[in-house]
């Protein structure tokens, strides 16, 4: 796996796991892969995965049960918040792209509506 942006790899792995949670690949309460398994899957140093899990734990998205492993939280408010944050990030970056193309923010809803209608 190649990590392309300028972000540290542990942050990019945090994003990969968040995406897996929001898209349902990892379910609420489900056990995350072991540090070693994910290290092998993504071909990165196990210390990096450990750091990613630490960050996710700090954000309360996962929790660790001693001797059992790391699990996705079952608290709905946290997962809803995660989904909301990711949606906001996507929309913000989309709007920045549109502004670079020369559209104003006010133009954007109209363009989206047009494409939705055409797509029907």
């Amino acid at each position, binding site marked *: *796996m*190649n*990590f*392309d*942006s*300028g*972000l*540290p*790899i*542990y942050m990019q792995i945090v994003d990969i796991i968040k995406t897996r949670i929001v898209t349902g690949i990892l379910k609420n309460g489900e056990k995350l892969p072991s540090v*070693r398994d994910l*290290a*092998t899957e*993504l*071909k*990165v*140093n*196990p*210390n*990096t995965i450990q*750091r990613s899990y630490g960050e996710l734990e700090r954000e309360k998205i996962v929790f660790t049960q001693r001797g059992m492993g790391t699990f996705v939280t079952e608290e709905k408010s946290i997962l809803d918040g995660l989904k909301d944050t990711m949606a906001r990030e996507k929309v913000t970056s989309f709007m920045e792209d549109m502004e670079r193309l020369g559209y104003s923010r006010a133009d954007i809803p109209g363009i989206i509506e047009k494409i939705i209608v055409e797509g029907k």
Partner: protein
Amino acid sequence: MENIVEIRGLTKRYDRKEALRSIELSIEKRKVVGILGPNGSGKTTLIKLLMGLLHPNKGEIKIDGESPGIHTKSVISYLPDRNSLYSWMTVKDALQMYQDFYQDFDGKKAEDLLQFMKLERTMRVSDMSKGMKEKLNLALVLSRRAKVYILDEPIAGVDPVARDQILDAIIDNYKEDSAMIITTHLVRDMENIFDQVVFLGDGEIILSGEAESLREEKNMQIDDLYKEIFG
């Protein structure tokens, strides 16, 4: 954290040419360190000094608390940058040689690694491709319970499938009570396994640090940083 390797003011000259100049480097247990630099930057000289194959003109090296010698050789497992096995050997002969030479050789681990690398015991070194030889050498090197693993250009000149197997084997065999030192100029393929990187150019350390901190600070991946420094 305990430093397993300490290098202080290390200088090595060949005739009048300085191959390494005032190298300072500390490596903790459980770290994977990438020594990065183009050909001729001093990587192999540094490794030969760590292995005790060359002697420094100035400065000192401590590995597991001692200068390179009998003790340090017994705690270092070394993958040279070229095949170190005789061409008449089979995989079985190579296993036997390691078993005889090294007290810390783990036969069970070697079996697992050979299976993972898809190497049969009856295969002969002379019939192997470059990638297969590299995989065999690495399997043997990783089967020792060493304190320091030194891998000199482990993926140079091997095909992409062998390269992935080699990377997987290195990650799977990462040990918390040992350190790994890996030289490479193929930074893009290997950067994700390094905790710490050292950019070596013309015999000097140009830049070194935690890989993740450098990414954050420079806002780029290590491969891009490498191209900026040596490009």
